[in-house]
């Protein structure tokens, strides 16, 4: 759920790298088909969808990384893809952070264990576009222009809004960011990760900022809010996971609405709110690795994610699929699941790449003061 469980991931990665350097078999000699797949920018370029499926089946495997099963329904998505195409999906380091995906790709480059595809936070994605292979899925045209690179180097896959999840059996109802300062919440408010490290936590600070008179260009009020939260003794420095929530260790969690919503199925008293005066959205970035050991399977994965089926699967996990509007028009959207998404009115705040970089710089200077 949290994408920055680095303790184990880092150790595992170090082990992998040490082991990999010596004894990993090199990637299989690329056949003519695979070579074609590695540079194909669309299914058509390979001779159509059937040819892509055949090439992917021939590869038989797909390496994905940093996809937690309870994050945006990735558990189901991986299973559905594997069953549909008979491809074995090798999901490495489900709890890794975006930067670790890139590190793994660099360190495992040339082996058959390197990640084939990436699912990244904004900053990491935009800083590493040189590692992506441009690819346009069949449904490329129905993805809003703002959410894709024109050549398909990266495409937003799903997004959501910053939300506050809370256990209504343990704490009083929460409707706004300001409510988090209530004395009843002493030692109870957790943020999903360290905002200088994890994208979700970072957006949590942006949310607090917007709620306190800040904006996408000015996140200082957000940092100040967390200082106040910390001074009040309400800020709990624990990384929330499904386990900490269920065991009652983290009764209030600031996180994406889809990860918070995923808890509801396990804990019926769990409520999720997107604060009305602080709607901060964010989309993840999907890309194919330029050095994918299974280039056809990687491209087929993209096709699957952006198909109606794949997009509805994201929706099933409470995430907002990027093609939602087009699918709603075409009547292919899972209306029931869509109706469950939190209502969002007005203009939600979405950070541009520049605002993101500027905010990150402020945060790296200021956040240490919050945690003391």
């Amino acid at each position, binding site marked *: 759920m949290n994408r920055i469980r680095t303790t184990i991931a880092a150790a595992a990665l170090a082990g992998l790298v040490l082991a990999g350097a010596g004894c990993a078999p090199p990637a299989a000699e690329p056949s003519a088909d695979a070579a074609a797949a590695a540079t194909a920018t669309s299914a058509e370029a390979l001779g159509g969808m059937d040819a892509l499926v055949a090439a992917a089946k021939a590869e038989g495997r797909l390496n994905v990384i940093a996809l937690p099963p309870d994050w945006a329904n990735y558990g189901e998505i991986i299973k559905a893809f594997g069953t549909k195409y008979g491809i074995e999906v090798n999901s490495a380091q489900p709890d890794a*952070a975006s930067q670790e995906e890139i590190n793994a790709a660099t360190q495992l480059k040339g082996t058959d264990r390197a990640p084939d595809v990436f699912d990244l936070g904004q900053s990491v994605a935009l800083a590493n576009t040189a590692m992506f292979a441009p690819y346009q899925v069949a449904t490329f045209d129905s993805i809003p222009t703002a959410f894709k690179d024109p050549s398909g180097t990266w495409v937003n896959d799903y997004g959501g809004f910053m939300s506050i999840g809370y256990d209504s059996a343990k704490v009083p109802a929460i409707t706004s960011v300001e409510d988090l300062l209530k004395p009843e919440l002493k*030692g109870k408010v957790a943020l999903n990760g360290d*905002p200088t*490290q*994890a994208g979700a936590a970072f957006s949590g600070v942006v949310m607090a900022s917007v709620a306190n008179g800040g904006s996408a260009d000015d996140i200082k009020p957000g940092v100040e809010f967390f200082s106040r939260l910390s001074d009040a*003794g309400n800020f709990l420095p624990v990384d929330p996971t499904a386990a900490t929530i269920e065991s009652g260790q983290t009764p209030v969690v600031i996180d994406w609405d889809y990860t918070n919503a995923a808890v509801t199925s396990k804990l019926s008293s769990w409520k999720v709110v997107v604060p009305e005066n602080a709607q901060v959205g964010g989309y993840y970035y999907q890309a194919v690795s330029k050095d994918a050991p299974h280039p056809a399977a990687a491209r087929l994965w993209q096709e699957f994610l952006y198909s109606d089926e794949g997009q509805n699967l994201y929706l099933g996990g409470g995430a907002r699929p990027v093609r939602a509007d087009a699918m709603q028009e075409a009547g292919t959207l899972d209306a029931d699941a869509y109706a469950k998404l939190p209502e969002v009115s007005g203009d939600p705040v979405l950070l541009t790449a520049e605002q993101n970089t500027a905010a*990150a710089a402020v945060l790296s200077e200021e956040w240490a003061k*919050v945690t*003391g």
Partner: protein
Amino acid sequence: MAAPATRTPRSRSRAARLLPVLGVVPFLAYLAVFLVVPTLTVVVGAFVEDGRPSLAVVRDLADPAVLGSLANSLVLSALTAVIGGVVGALLAYAVVTGPADGALRRLVTSVCGVLAQFGGVTLAFAFIATLGISGVVSVWLDATFGTGLTSSTWLFSLRGLVLVYAYFQIPLMVIVFLPALDGVRVQWREAAENLGASTWQYWRLVGLPLLAPAFLGSLLLLFANAFAAYATAAALVSQGNPIIPLWIRSALTSEVVLGHANFAYALALEMVLVVALVMTGYSLLVRRTARWLG
């Protein structure tokens, strides 16, 4: 120049001299792969930015937040070394005064052997389950004495780290300090008593001066042990970087503040320097004790 008859024994002796050297080769290779190469990587990496030699990364170490973490790291290591050292030494002394193959000694040494290695994520989770926000003991203390532990975040701060680190520091002290205590001969005490020394005089003039270098050496070892511990802290503290190893984590994995990988090298170099200083002190002290407690 030499006759054939003398050549054979000489070459045999050369081979005999070479053999032990060959035996060391695996060890040297091990050192090279696991010590020399990583250290060189760290040193080189700390002085590179964007592929060019630069001092900028090392200069970032002067950031107040980083300096604060270094101070915390030093305080945490020193404090837990002293706590572990004093408590561990007393425990070791209690063991030594008993019979050499007694049940107490066997029990304490084997328990310490296990606990000294019981660090990392397992230990952190054990503490969270016991003294954390919904920990068994916290809930009980709250219900019985109203301590407010269940809404307190102390375990995830520096204070919590001190407690958790002490948990593996004390048994480690027992293990490293026992041999020194064993080296103290009963005869020395008898000699002192024969000369009319009181217990206090024996300890002040003979026992403590003899054990002091070994004690300080053990303290330094504990210090280095705590200074380099990572997994325990990483599992406990997920907000902020109160100690240097956690800064390294965030420099390597941050998905918000990018391009900090070289800063991790600089931080590692800083740690290497501190530990090198500590270990130099350690080896100097050990050399002094070895003269007495052979």
